[in-house]
């Protein structure tokens, strides 16, 4: 049994009266391609924020590679190999594309083992396909390129687990396929674990091996896609017709 | 300390607090509505005081007459200041945080400008005049307490103006529009509320209130170019205590602060006044940056 890269134990996040994440248990290991789906307000992004240290937990524990990082600042999570991209790309607009990637290399990525694909910013840019845009200021590239840059910045920290937040939103089918291909390649060649939140259910289910379903902060299901779409609670709470299509 | 003495202390605190509330209401209108942290607010109070003094001493006009004049004068100044200084910032600032930081810096610039202008024109000596200084007996206790008539007048008028503002905001259509803008700028614009006109109007109103407060204070306090700054600080404390955008909070907070100050000064020492004010300010900002009355 592979050791879990990231383990969430009874993670709960409460904002005043609202429980955004409700005692969610999850384990993510190296080499997994896991998806997280759920309707709006299900707590997916809040869960990601918790997993990356950006959002403090109300209760519960987070273990990264067996080390308890509950309550630590985000940089500790990054230093232990958890990287994330943001839903709306948060790139350093005034720095060049190359410098954006170099940023992660200078900090969390510094003391971590450097596989050849993530050796320096040139190789990372080649990996995500932004080699030609290296010298442009990050604010000047297109939104979908910025999304790729987001991933590149995350990769620069040389993570073991990559959290992707709705990276396929607004992309064409071909672009989504390319994105999924990139994710698979990262998993295959770098052994990364990939956790992918996506709103477009059918799209996601095609590409992941395991899927978590969140609804109103609670985890409804955690299994292979084929099994999840048949679970009654999932169908009732969320999927309905969409699942009939996918099945 | 006797009960009567307590009441007297309380009353004198409330009197000071009334002016604090009036100044804070003006500042809150500007910050709550427009996110303009007008650090030069007190300087316009000072201008109102000088204007009233000049009219009283130079032309023999009653300060009571000057009050509405000060309001109009400084209200108009507010319109001009907003048009010249803050309107462009709204257009050129990318985020609210940037706008806030820039308007803070503009406020500092105004502070330099106005305070030194006054210093240049009127000089640094203390000015003042006497108006209704006769003591009035107020039946607070069996022995009867005495307060200067002008202080009572200041308190009454400060409360009256504060109440008028709150009534304006609560009961008129204009007030509703302003409150809507405060709560949801985008939503308000979508239903046709003219932001472009309301912002300068409310900024002017805020400054007008400062002018009135200055006019009131000119009756009881010494007038110097530097008199405004402590009131700005106090107003900042009050709006932080009472919550940004909450008018009732500013009223309550102002009165409360006046009382706290009176008690604090009595039990420690008057020279600690500024120290206490800043101490409270920092304490509140650190402990409850959203104000004491916010549920968060």
């Amino acid at each position, binding site marked *: 049994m592979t050791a879990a890269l990231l383990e969430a134990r009874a993670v709960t996040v409460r904002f005043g009266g609202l429980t955004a994440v409700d005692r969610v248990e999850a384990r993510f290991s190296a080499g997994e391609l896991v998806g997280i789906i759920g309707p709006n307000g299900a707590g997916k992004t809040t869960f990601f924020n918790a997993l990356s*240290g*950006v959002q403090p937990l109300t209760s519960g524990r987070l273990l990264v590679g067996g080390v308890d990082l509950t309550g630590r*600042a*985000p*940089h500790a*999570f*990054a*230093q232990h190999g958890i990287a994330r991209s*943001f839903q709306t790309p*948060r*790139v*350093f*607009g*005034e*720095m060049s594309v190359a410098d954006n990637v170099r*940023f*992660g290399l*200078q*900090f*969390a*990525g*510094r003391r971590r083992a450097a596989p050849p694909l993530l050796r320096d910013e040139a190789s990372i840019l080649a990996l995500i396909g932004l080699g030609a845009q290296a010298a442009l200021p990050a604010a000047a590239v297109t939104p979908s390129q910025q999304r790729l840059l987001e991933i590149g*910045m*995350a990769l*620069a*920290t040389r993570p073991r687990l990559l959290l992707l937040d709705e990276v396929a939103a607004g992309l064409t089918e071909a672009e989504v396929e390319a994105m999924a291909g990139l994710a698979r390649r990262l998993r295959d060649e770098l052994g990364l674990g990939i956790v992918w939140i996506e709103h477009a259910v059918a799209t996601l289910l095609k590409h992941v091996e395991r899927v978590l379903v969140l609804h109103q902060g609670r985890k409804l299901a955690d299994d292979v896609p084929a099994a999840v779409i048949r679970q009654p609670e999932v169908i009732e709470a969320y999927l309905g017709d969409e699942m009939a299509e996918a099945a | 300390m006797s009960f009567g003495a307590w009441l007297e202390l309380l009353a004198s605190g409330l009197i000071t607090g009334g002016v604090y509330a009036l100044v804070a209401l003006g500042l809150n209108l500007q910050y709550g509505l427009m996110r303009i*942290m007008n*650090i030069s607010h007190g300087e316009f109070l000072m201008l109102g005081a000088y204007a009233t003094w000049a009219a009283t001493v130079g032309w023999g006009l009653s300060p009571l007459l000057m009050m509405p004049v000060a309001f109009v004068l400084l209200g108009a100044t507010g319109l001009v200041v907003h048009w010249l*200084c803050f309107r462009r*910032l709204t257009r*050129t600032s990318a985020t609210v*945080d940037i706008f*806030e*930081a*820039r308007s803070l*810096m*503009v406020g*500092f*610039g105004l*502070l*330099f*400008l*106005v*305070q*030194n*202008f006054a*210093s*240049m024109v009127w000089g640094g000596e203390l000015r003042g005049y006497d108006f209704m200084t006769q003591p009035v007996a107020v039946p607070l206790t069996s022995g009867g307490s005495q307060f200067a008539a002008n202080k009572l007048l200041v308190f009454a008028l400060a409360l009256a103006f504060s109440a008028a503002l709150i009534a304006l905001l609560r009961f008129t259509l204009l007030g509703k529009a302003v409150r809507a803008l405060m709560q949801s700028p985008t939503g308000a614009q979508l239903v046709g509320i003219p932001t472009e006109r309301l912002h300068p109007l409310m900024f002017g109103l805020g400054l007008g209130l400062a002018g009135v407060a200055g006019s009131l204070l000119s009756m009881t306090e010494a007038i110097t170019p530097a008199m405004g700054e402590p009131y700005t*600080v106090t107003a*900042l404390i009050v709006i932080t205590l009472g919550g940004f955008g909450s008018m009732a909070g500013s009223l309550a907070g102002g009165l409360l602060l006046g009382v706290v100050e009176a008690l604090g000064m009595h039990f420690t020492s008057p*020279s*600690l006044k*500024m*120290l206490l004010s*800043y*101490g409270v300010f*920092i304490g509140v*900002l*650190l402990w409850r*940056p959203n104000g004491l009355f916010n549920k968060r």
Partner: protein
Amino acid sequence: MNLTNHRSTRDLLVLAGLAAALLALPAVASEFITSLALSCLMYAALASSWSLFCGATRYLSLATSAFFGIGAYVTALGLDALPWPLLILAGAGAAALLAVLMGAAVLHLRGTYFAVLTFGMTELIRHAVTYGEKQVAGTVGRVLATVPEPGTVYLTVMLIAVAAVATAIGVRRSRFGLALAGVGADEQRAQTLGVNTKLVKIAGFALTAAFAGAAGAAMAVRWTYIDPHTVFNPFIGFQTVLIALIGGAATLWGPVIAAVVFSLLAETLRLQLPQLYMMVLGVLLILCVLYLPSGLASVRWAGVRATWSRVTHLLNVRPRGHGRSA
């Protein structure tokens, strides 16, 4: 990376040249000019070190007066006990310590709060020292008796200014400087990329404070009589911020050049028309924030020159109807 290295080498060379010239100044120039230079150097040190932290991270610190004043008081208290160099270091150290305490308390707050809080804390310290002095010493001011020679003071302030600019050059090309820039661009993003922003901010703030404290410690002896109103004067902080903003807080030389310009302006105007000077400052600050938020150094001078040459070229063109040369 190569470009940055070249630029910082060039900057260091310029700095070395300036330092040499400044070193020679007292020998060749009059006392008045030297004193003018001293003023420029003081604000160059203050503005440069302020920009080092605040320019990059976009935190608006109004605490410079507090750090400056603390340094001055260290000198006032320790002048008879410590040798001069140690005194300056102690001033820097005390200011840095204050910054660490202040920073730990307020650096997690966003822009406006931070600015207003640093202002409030500075005033609090001023009033606290005033009150403390009255209680302990009876009077508010202190006289500095055994004062080092003016030449020593000049040299010290010059060294502090040079050190401030040199540190700025060094930081800008270091990982620390990159971290500061990340904090300014998007703090949370920088955190998720591995930057310990809390530590970085406190360190930057302390660095800024150290130079301000050293400057205060040195300048105190120039005034020989210090009191809280003078050394904790919030105007010192405002002028520093103003100079840095107008010069261009994110640039290296902007604040330095602006420091020189404003010190000269101050010296000429301040004695005759002090209020006018402050009013001009106020107007300049407003104009700068409204029209040049990134400071003068950010104006693209190449663009200005291009526009200018286009304009003059237009003015030289023959009027229509005269035909072109065949």
